[in-house]
């Protein structure tokens, strides 16, 4: 399958998203824009949402190719790209269910945070489940920040907030993991230590 047709479709969709939301665009309009037949479009994609999915999938695979130590920097770069292309991003975002976007964002944000948690965990006696719990907690926070950023129209760059988050995580990951590795008081039974 020639990759160029798929890329042509992707590019044409990007152009159309500059002026309207994803749910306002039709396949017929898209194939006119890139000069292919409807069947050529459907050979590659089941619908327009599948084009967006593929774009995200490609980015995610690219992220998987680079070493974990560079994920945070990559995250920064992606957020910068999203900001620069915010008109297109919002026109796509507004056609999706929020829960669907949340599901995808969770996959994305887990990766850079996971790496930092694993790094910090080397100094603590914690289980894999406990590490996963901390990763989940932090990435959920990040997901909500990004969703709010989308909902409020992406008015300012997100990279500043990422920097803040990076700074906060620095000390607090250690603190959280340390707390998890220690014996603790139970709320329901103060006697049991």
């Amino acid at each position, binding site marked *: 399958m020639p990759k160029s047709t798929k890329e042509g479709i992707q590019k044409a969709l990007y152009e159309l998203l500059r002026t309207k939301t994803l749910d306002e665009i039709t396949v017929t309009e898209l194939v006119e824009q890139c000069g292919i037949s409807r069947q050529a479009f*459907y050979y590659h994609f089941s619908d327009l949402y599948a084009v967006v999915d593929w774009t995200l999938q490609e980015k995610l695979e690219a992220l998987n190719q680079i070493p974990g130590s560079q994920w945070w920097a990559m995250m920064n770069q992606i957020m910068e790209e999203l900001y620069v292309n915010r008109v297109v991003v919002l026109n796509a975002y507004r056609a999706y269910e929020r829960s669907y976007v949340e599901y995808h964002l969770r996959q994305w944000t887990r990766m850079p945070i996971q790496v930092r948690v694993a790094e910090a965990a080397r100094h603590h006696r914690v289980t894999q489940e406990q590490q996963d719990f901390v990763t989940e907690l932090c990435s959920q926070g990040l997901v909500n920040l990004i969703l709010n950023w989308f909902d409020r129209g992406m008015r300012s760059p997100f990279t500043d907030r990422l920097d803040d988050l990076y700074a906060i995580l620095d000390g607090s990951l250690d603190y959280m993991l340390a707390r998890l590795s220690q014996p603790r008081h139970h709320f329901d039974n103060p006697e049991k230590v």
Partner: protein
Amino acid sequence: MSVIDSVKKVGFRTIYSYLDKDPDANIPKIMDWVDKFAGDGPNSFPSQRAVFRSVIEDHNNNWYRLIKSMWSDIDDDVRRTFFENFFLNGNLIGWKKQEENRQKYGCNIPWAILLDPTSACNLHCTGCWAAEYGNKLNLTFDEIDSIITQGKELGIYIYIYTGGEPLVRKNDLIALCNKHSDCEFLCFTNATLIDEDFANEMLRVKNFVPAISVEGFEQATDGRRGDGVFQKVRRAMQILKEKKLPFGVSCCYTSANMESISSEEFVDGLVEWGAKFAWYFHYMPVGNDAVPELMPTPEQREEFYHRVRDNYRHTKPIFLLDFQNDGEYVGGCIAGGRRYLHINANGDVDPCVFIHYSDSNIREKSLLDCLRGPMFMAYHDGQPFNENMLRPCPMLENPEKLREMVAKTGAHSTDPESPESAEHLCAKCDAYAANWKPTADKLWTASHSCASCSGCGEQK
């Protein structure tokens, strides 16, 4: 989608995931659950459940082996898609919609649509109707897309390509699988265009199942289809098996090949090659160039009836259908939109793949209006055409019925090359029908006396 349908989907997926984890252990558990819910009321299908129970408790049973092979031989995602599209959409959800529309519109609403994407074929086999159609006609991508879109509105999720050789249009077919990912697509094919690349595309879309035409072993297949075709077919089957893709075969039995194509050796061959289903078709003397002598004799047809029912269905791990003799399981003739219809590459909407008389064209009318056309309504009002369902067809076993319907509705021949009058066609069946009747009546009486039936559960 209605709330009930969403609930069905969620329930089905939950059961499927459970089954998928450990089919050996979980099939019986699901059956326990079914028994509990079915209770013992009049509509609880006790005899059917008993049969299913005996199948799943005996691991050497041929049906159990067939079910199990769906896990060992078929790709996980393809199997999941098949269960979802074929069983859930095509039957559980689709059936309800079809029933509602049958009531609402007072006409037949099919379970499946057969359509010819093209009349073109890369082979030129003797006696094939496609060869006589010439190589000129095509349904466009947009036309097929529209048929499927209209079909789904009516509750139809199963589409079966015929032709012509559908795979001449393989890119369009993949595109349609991709676009209608909630439907299951089957395809009659000579298999010579199935290669490694196409198999990979089938794995990508997950909802395309070929039914490969074979005439028997090498000599018989090459004799009708051309030298070297059998080896190409075997190669295609090997590719499909290696890629863990499901496929079946389609066989046409005639007075000439009956002995070999219905032999145990051949059915064992099909199982070994990896076919999961085998569709057997009785030779039909359709077209001006047909050879009526190729119609099986009553003795041959009876022999096959016994081989299937007394032997193969109890011993072979393959889903074997003998359409002409299995009418009783589906209430007789299924054509005319009752369970299926046929749209040729010219857009003519035929009642059956074998009966090319129509008054409607999909290029001029909606699918629903075609179903409400005079010929389809004549089928609707006339079905079943015979109480004896070993004589199901309005052409082969009841030729006076087709004559009458064509005369009454003014349907015309849709054969674009050499139009055949209904009289010419039916005259070829008169003697056959008269000869088959005594055997059919004997077999029907033998299998439908109270002594041979457990249908109502009462001992008599």
